[in-house]
Each structure stands twice: as structure tokens, then as C-alpha cells.
């Protein structure tokens, strides 16, 4: 009998989950997964619905994502209509009341960030414009700091028992981040005014923060694939107004930038765009370190 009790206790012990993370977090993009990991540490279990090699505009609400959304305590997305093509479906079909819009379990980074490029008129003839302004907001590190404040509060709201720890982790993060930003701004100072060509407006915040000058886009209209005609026109523009480099995100096809760069005789530079987009971009600090390195390398 004693053996039986001992045995069942052992079995119970085995069946009980090992020290589990308090919050199950699903993020729409890798940058927010990385930030949630910074702020939550071992209090959170984080996964990202997309990788740096996937276009966050064009994702499918595939079965595995529904299964993950079903179990999430907190869904962290960019918002500002970046994910309109798949996120509403994910929220509706997952049968998870916690992550619905308006619930504390749904966090939109755009609500805490400074948004640029708000369109004054909406017309699809303008291409795939984002009605709520440019949603690719994480490439301005000041936005990361703003979103971190909001996210730390939200984590604490959802897990009040560990509220002080989230606040402490955020304070640490903000300290490191401010120092890193000062360093990046120092490094990036000589890029100010550098003329560049970009693939899509997903680099607008980086351009805005570092004061680069965009003189052309590979996409004829936002969201439209580059066409031969548009690239030829762009090449003509570059003859009159030369650019220092052609920039694109890791998830974008290299073809158009390679074509233009070889003819204009300037470097084509792939930027990690988000965490995981290059070997150096292992976390948020690495993302900006690597981005600055690449820019400085392309514009000596």
C-alpha cells in the first residue's frame, strides 16, 4: 500500500508540469517576440508567427498558427493594418477570447509608437497603401523604447504577481537601449543626408531616424512588384541624382536591387529588417548593430 502511494505520488510529480512560464506569448513579428523576451525573461514563453524571411503583409492564417493562437495568453502585433490580410482571421478562428481586439490579451505596438507617412488620401491606384500610416515602425529604435514601456505595463497587467519584475526588466532594458541609441546615432551621424534607393517603404523609419534621403523606390507603387519599366526609369533618375546604395529587407527578392545596383554601379545592401534577418541580428541590439554596420560599410 505504501509502495502504491509512493508510486502514485511519483507519477503525479511526473505528470505535473515543470516550472512553467507564467505567460504564453504569441507575436506576429520577430521584433516583438524579441522585445517580449527581453521584458519577460523566463516569466514568458514566446514564439513568433513569422520569421524575418517572411513578408509580414502576406502571411496565411495556416493551421499551425491557429493552434498557437488558441493557446496564447497574449498576442502581440504591430497593428496599423500591417497584418490585415491574416490577423483578423487568426483572432476570429482561434476560439480564444483573451486575444480579441480590445481585450488585454491583444497588444498593438502601433498604439504606443510615433507613426509616420499617414496618407492624406486613400485610393488603391496608389498601390497597397496603409491607411493608418506606415506600420513598419520598429526600425526607429525610439519606437522600440516607447513600445517597451507599453508592453511591460501590459505584461504586468496580465501577470500582476510578477509586476515588479517586468517593471525592473523594463528599466534595465531602457537603460541599455538609451546607451545603445546614443552610440548608433553617433555612428550614424555621417550617414545623414546620404541618398539611397529602397525596395519598399518598410525602411522608412530607419531612413527617418538616420536622416537618409530616399530618392527612389524599387516598387512602382507600395506593395507592387518591381517592373522592368519602372526600374529603367529609376536608373535614369540615378544618372541625374546618384544614390549611395540600394537597400532592401532580407525577406525581399534580391533581383530588382541587384539589377539596379549593377547598372548604377552602387552597392546593393540587404538589411536584416528584423530579428533573425541576418546572423548578426540575434536580438534587438544585434539588429541595429548589424544594420548600422551594413550601412556604414556600404557608404564608407
Amino acid at each position, binding site marked *: 500500500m505504501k509502495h502504491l502511494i509512493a508510486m502514485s505520488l511519483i507519477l503525479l510529480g511526473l505528470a505535473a508540469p515543470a516550472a512553467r512560464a507564467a505567460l504564453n506569448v504569441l507575436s506576429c513579428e520577430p521584433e516583438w517576440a524579441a522585445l517580449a523576451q527581453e521584458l519577460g525573461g523566463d516569466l514568458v514563453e514566446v514564439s513568433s508567427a513569422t*520569421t524575418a524571411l517572411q513578408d509580414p503583409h502576406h502571411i496565411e492564417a*495556416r493551421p499551425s498558427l491557429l493552434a498557437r493562437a*488558441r493557446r496564447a495568453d497574449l498576442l502581440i502585433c504591430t497593428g496599423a493594418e500591417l497584418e490585415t490580410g*491574416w*490577423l483578423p482571421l487568426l483572432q476570429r478562428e482561434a*476560439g480564444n477570447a483573451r486575444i480579441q481586439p480590445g481585450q488585454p490579451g491583444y497588444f498593438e505596438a502601433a498604439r504606443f509608437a510615433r507613426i*509616420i507617412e499617414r496618407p492624406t488620401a486613400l485610393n488603391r491606384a496608389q498601390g497597397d497603401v496603409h491607411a493608418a500610416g506606415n506600420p513598419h515602425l520598429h526600425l526607429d529604435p525610439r519606437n522600440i523604447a516607447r513600445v517597451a514601456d507599453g508592453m511591460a505595463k501590459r505584461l504586468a497587467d496580465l501577470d500582476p504577481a510578477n509586476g515588479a519584475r517586468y517593471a525592473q526588466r523594463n528599466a534595465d532594458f531602457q537603460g541599455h537601449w538609451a546607451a545603445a541609441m546614443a552610440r548608433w546615432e553617433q555612428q550614424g551621424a555621417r550617414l*545623414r543626408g546620404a541618398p539611397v534607393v529602397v525596395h519598399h517603404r518598410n525602411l522608412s523609419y530607419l531612413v527617418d531616424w*538616420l536622416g537618409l534621403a530616399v530618392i527612389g523606390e524599387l516598387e512602382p507603387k507600395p506593395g507592387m512588384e518591381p517592373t522592368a519599366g519602372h526600374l529603367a526609369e529609376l536608373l535614369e533618375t540615378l544618372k541625374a541624382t546618384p544614390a549611395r546604395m540600394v537597400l532592401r529587407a532580407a525577406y525581399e527578392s534580391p533581383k530588382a536591387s541587384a539589377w539596379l545596383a549593377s547598372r548604377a554601379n552602387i552597392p546593393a545592401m540587404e538589411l536584416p529588417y528584423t530579428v533573425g534577418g541576418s546572423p548578426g541580428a540575434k536580438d534587438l541590439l544585434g539588429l541595429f548593430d548589424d544594420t548600422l554596420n551594413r550601412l556604414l560599410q556600404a557608404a564608407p
Partner: protein
Amino acid sequence: MFHRLLLAAGLAIVLASPARAASPDEISALRAEFDRKFQSLQADYEARLKVLESRVQTAEIKADNAQQDAAANASPPPVSSNAFNPDISLILQGAYIDRAGGERPITGFMPAGEHAHGERGFTLDHTEVVASANVDPYSRAFVNLALADEEVEVEEAWFQSLRLGHGLTVKGGRFRSGIGYQNEKHPHAWDFADNNLMYSALFGEALKQDGVQVRWLAPTELFLELGAEVAKGQFFPGSDGGADKNGAGAWAAFAHVGGDVGIAHSWRAGVSYLRASPREREAFLDDINDFEALTAFSGRSSAWLADFVWKWAPDGNPRQRNFIFAAEYFDRDEDGDLLCQDDSAAGGACLGLTDRYDSAQSGGYVQAIYQFMPRWRTGLRYDRLDGGSVDLGANGAFFDSADFDPSRWSLMTDYSPSEFSRFRLQFARDKSFQDDPDNQVILQYIMSIGAHGAHKF
């Protein structure tokens, strides 16, 4: 600025030297010292200038940023009362179709609805109007109307729960059933210009249900979804007669599993079951004299469906290239009584007898779609149905027994200038109508305007 520095440096050197006539040696030594000091001063000055410059730039950035911050915060997003209006989209889908004329029902299968005759030449087909919005924090409503000349068909009109949690979602109203894979997709989201033979034979277009659907998603790593529906059952394979009662004239259940394999592959597989009880379900069948006989079936219709879809994209990024494979299979049994009347008044064979009708039929399709470069896709589909066994009892004497398995090959290429428009060219070798194979060409366009919602996997 630089000249003054030079002057100052020169003066300093002169003042530092004793007031006496200098020898040529001393002069050259002095000059060397002057040059050295001057160069070091120059380097120092340049370094200071650089630091100053970068500090000014950083300050400029900061000032700029502060200004932009203020500007951005001063202009909150515009809000207007029509932000509460539903998302509305209109979908136009017209075509030019070249195919054999006349009625070409799928041989050996009870025609499902009025879609047996194909239009040809230029056609508007139908135009979809879609509206959807959250009703309140608890539910969402969706309407899809199909507009054609002199008719508006309510394709879907339902509400869906948003806040039940525990993996549960309830839908009520008229909705496309969750059975199978293609059933929930509207024609504008199909990968071919026309319907596959399986869905044509089973439902006409797709199974619509007026009723209630409950879905449950399991809290597991693997995607596992279970669903059940009870409905009025007035649409084929049900009938108005079967639906005219308290309770449900049809019910369905389905289970889907799915997941990812690595980062590049994802899949979903499912089984579904549908049961309907048609009463006096009318259909025209060609009799042995080639006259249209009016038949009425009462009994039980049950069908099993199996579906599988597999998608691939390099790195899971479908933007440049992607591949979709889908296959579905069904097995349907219908047992009951069939009344066969001579509808054409003269020459028809049927004598108004009611006798048993037992059929066991099956079929399916396999299709593959490949996007080989941005905007361009090509696809191949093979349809095949098995006429199976059909026992008409005493009425069997009035019909040719069809030992025929309908089939069709379709090849399409489509071009999408953007995600809101698509042009498609499709060729088909259609052998679904016995003894009269047909080569078909369809040139189709799909245009969607307004807020276009996301498509399911």
C-alpha cells in the same frame, strides 16, 4: 580662421626665441619646428572640428526628432462616424467562355440545382457584394450577396461568436458548410475558372446551410478542429420538402488536423460527413426516348468527404514562388423512393411509378497550383467521378443504364497585377457528358474593390 591660427602659431614661435640674429642652421631648425607644430595644430584642429560637426549633427537629429515627435503627436488619426460602417467589398467576375451549348448535366448523377446549363460567350457571371463588421464585442456579422440579372441570391448571412473562448466558435444564419476543403471558398477564391466536378455533383456549387455551426479547436500543438452543424436542409442534396418540418433537415460533422513541416511546408487534412433527408426532391432526367422526365426523390442522402491540402513556399514566404496541392474525395449513398413522371406530355417513357432508388457513387479531384514568379501562376486539375451503382427499381426500365465515369482535365494560367485583380485563361477537356467530349476555353477576370477580407488557408 585658419590664417589667424597660422599667424598666432608663427608669433608664438617668434616670441619664444631669444632676441638675437639667428644663424642659417638655427633658422632651418626653427622652420622645421614651426612646420611640425603647425602640422600638429592643424591635425588637432581638424579632429576638434570633426567632433564638433558630429555633435552638431547629433543635436540636429535630436531637434528634428523632437519636432517630428511633436508633429506626430499633435495629429491624432482622423476619426469619422463612418468608421463604424461595415467593411464592404464588391467582387466582379466575368468571362468569355467557349464551349458546347445546351444542357450538359454530369452523366449518371442527379443534377444538383440549376447549374447544369453552362453559359457561353461573354458573361458577367455574378457579382458578389460582401459586407462584414463586428456587431459588438461579442459577435461579428457577415453578408455575401450574389447579384445577377433579376435575381439576388443570399450566398451567406451569418453571425459568429467572438468571445466564447475555450476554443469554441458558434456561427448562426446561412453559411457555407465547414465540410471538405473547397466548400467555404467563394468562386472568386477558386483556383480554376469553374467548379470541380465533385462539388458540382454533390452540391451544384457548394453546400449552404441555414442553421447553426459549432466549432471547437483543441488546445494542442497539432491543429485539431472538430465541428458540427444542424440545418434546415433545403439545399441539394436536401430539398424544400425535407426542410418543411420542425427540427433539422440536414446535419453535418467534420474534423480537421493540420500543421507545419519545417518552415516551408504546411498541410491540413480532414474528414466530413453530411446527412440530409430530402422529400420530393425534383430533378429532370433524360429517359430512354430522350425526353426529360420529372423525377421526385424522397429518402436519405449521406456523404463522406475526405480532403487534403499541402502548401509549400521557400522559407515560408509565398511572395515569389509557392505551390499548392489539394485533393478531395467523396462517397455518397442515397436510399429512398423515386417517382418518375412523364413531363413532356407526349413521348416520355415514365408512367408515374414510385419505386426504390438506391445509389452509391463516388469521385474526387486532384489539383496543383504553382506560382512560378510573382503575379503568375499555373495549375492543373483532374476530375473523376465514379458512376457507381444506381438501382431505379421498376423505373429502371425507362432509363438507359449509364456505365460511364465522367472525367475532365483542366489547365489554367493566371496573372494577378495586384492582390485585388486577376486574369485567367483556362483550357479543359471535358468528358463529363457521355458521348460528347468537349474542348472548353475560358478567359476570366476577377476584380475586387473595397475592403477585401482575408482568405482562409
